[in-house]
């Protein structure tokens, strides 16, 4: 009996020591936690919504009509304080996974189909918050709808703002989201869509040399409008998803983000085997002091 008590006591002590050890040697905080702490200490943060409003008026991706079509956002009323439901208002909504401001999971592209944790339900939760590098291409995109982001642009950006950290979002700011007219936003003519995006070398650089978390744009795709004619076609989808990286598209308010220093919160819906999902994306931005 006594021996047993002693054993328990000894165990308790051991457990206490284990706890004390953990406390004494805290886990190394990941970059996000440290960054949040720095932000809080430096004078607080504000939030910037990077999400377009989901509505039937927001244009969906256009594919040739004989291909399978992504459903645009649609909303049908279930009841609105009426005979169908006297005290409540609600709707049925339907949409493709890649509708409005949305997230692309690696399984979206054939190059990422066999990767681990490549679907919306298996993506590691740590990836839902990550630092952002915002590359301002708004002047170039205003001049040329088919503007392509190149390695030279990235290197010029890095000279001013520092190296793009691994596991960060690279967001291509084009101010394309300010095109409120869906016709101008789609910018289609007989030769297809004309919207800015990255060139193949740029994507290879971000994946291989910088190991980014993903690439985000203000346009309907992470790839340029004419990317079907690139080699490989749709390089951003091909390389990013092939390397287990993500995409964000139809973002807005990128002009309200600093080039570096903000954190992006982007958590897709937990759809089983989902290839992507509309989501609320926002940035945690440090307040500029002084």
């Amino acid at each position, binding site marked *: 009996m006594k021996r047993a008590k002693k054993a328990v006591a000894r165990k308790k002590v051991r457990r206490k020591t284990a706890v004390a050890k953990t406390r004494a040697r805290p886990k190394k905080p990941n970059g996000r936690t440290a960054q949040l702490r720095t932000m809080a200490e430096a004078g607080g943060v504000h939030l910037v919504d990077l999400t377009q409003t989901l509505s*039937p008026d927001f244009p969906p991706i256009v594919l040739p009509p004989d291909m399978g079509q992504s459903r*645009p956002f649609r909303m049908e009323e279930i009841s609105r304080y009426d005979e169908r439901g006297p005290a409540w208002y609600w709707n049925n909504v339907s949409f493709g996974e890649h509708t409005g401001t949305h997230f692309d999971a690696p399984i979206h592209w054939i190059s990422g189909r066999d990767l681990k944790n490549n679907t919306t339900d298996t993506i590691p939760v740590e990836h839902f918050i990550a630092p952002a590098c915002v590359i301002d291409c708004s002047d170039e995109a205003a001049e040329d709808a088919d503007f392509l982001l190149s390695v030279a642009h990235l290197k010029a950006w890095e000279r001013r703002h520092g190296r793009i950290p691994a596991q960060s979002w690279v967001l291509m700011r084009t101010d394309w989201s300010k095109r409120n007219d869906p016709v101008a*936003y789609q910018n*289609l003519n007989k030769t297809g869509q004309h919207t800015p995006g990255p060139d193949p070398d740029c994507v290879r650089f971000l994946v291989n040399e910088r190991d980014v978390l993903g690439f985000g744009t203000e346009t309907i795709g992470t790839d340029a409008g004419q990317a079907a004619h690139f080699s490989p076609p749709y390089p951003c989808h091909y390389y990013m998803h092939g390397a287990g990286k993500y995409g964000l598209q139809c973002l807005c308010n990128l002009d309200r983000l600093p080039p570096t220093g903000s954190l992006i919160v982007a958590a897709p819906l937990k759809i089983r085997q989902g290839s992507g999902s509309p989501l609320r994306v926002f940035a945690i931005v440090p307040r500029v002091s002084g």
Partner: protein
Amino acid sequence: MPGRAARRRAKNPILRTRQPTLPPAARSRVALGLTAAAARGRFALQVCRDCSAVQYPPREVCRACLSHRLIWQPQDGKGELLTDTTLRTAQELYFRERLPWRTGIVRLDGGVNVVAYVHASVGAAPCRVRIEAALDRAGQAALIVMPEQGRPGLSEDPNLREFTCDPRGRKILVTDGKTLVGQAIVQAVAKAGADKIWIGEAEPWKKSAGLEALRALPQAVVVPLDVTDGGSVQELAGEIGGKVDILINTADHHRAFSIAARRGVETAQLEMEVNYFGLLRLAQAFAPVLKARAADEPTNAIAWVNVLSIFALANYPPHGTYSASKAAAFSLSQALRTELRPAGVRLINLFPGPIDDEWDQLEMPPKLAPAALANAVVTALKGSVEDVYPGDVAQDWVARHLDNPKALEREVGEGGR
């Protein structure tokens, strides 16, 4: 500022909107045989199989030999106007509002006397004439005395004009101006004298050269309308619903797939979304206000036109899911017709065969030119019908369908069209 003509045509907003009245609509089941023929623009009477006697009015047994073997047969309608008179008083509200009204008795060459409305162009009795069947505003068959020679339109008679839905002077909504058929219909109703044409445009970012060309028509206005979006349909109904006299639903999603040729249901869903739910959304948004304006002045809501497909009658397996969506739309149109009828708003269905457009590219001729289909729409509106089977393929299919629907199903399934 509106011109003087526009002001003269404008409605006095402080007067009550006139409510629709209908001619007497009760018919026996056997008498609906007249209506069934008239709905396709035909004049048919029962003929006795045993003694060949022509029957009128419709009946259960032969007036000559009491045989019950009476079959409906198309008639040429020729005969002699024995006498005519002009009604100047009537108890029925419909006629009371429209007096004077000319009627007469015609001795058909087939040996029966019929009572019929007399077209204004017919001379004084006695004279040779021709009987036509037309649908009145209650949707029932009425017999019309026409001159034996020449083919004056019903619109040329002030009372019989109401038996038509003549597009002249009307305000018309064509729900989709991006299809070749929609564009041809806009051109045709413009030529037929439509006063105003609203042309629906979905997905404005997909430019259509054909639709752009229509903007040049002085009476045309392109409006946003996507029948897959309830909000879009309601918004347009809110803006122009109270002005539309004729709604022509051309919205159509057509993909040529058999069941086996397309995995999944996404294409079939979109076909249903446009062809069936689109019609339902339009019906819920526009039908109530059309009914409310069925006797409005100076112009009134008068017709609803659906461009369906002959594949609604029997499934064409190479376009299997499309056929199903058109069958669903056909079924729903019957409910809509029933709901519109008490107001006297006519629902006209067109059942074309393959159309000479991109989605029927691989179909063998004969194919219906969009312009021919558009002419069929105008002819149907100027006439007095509910069901139109334009073109050779449609005529052939409907004849086979009426003869033996099971046989048609087999023929289509085994040997193409």
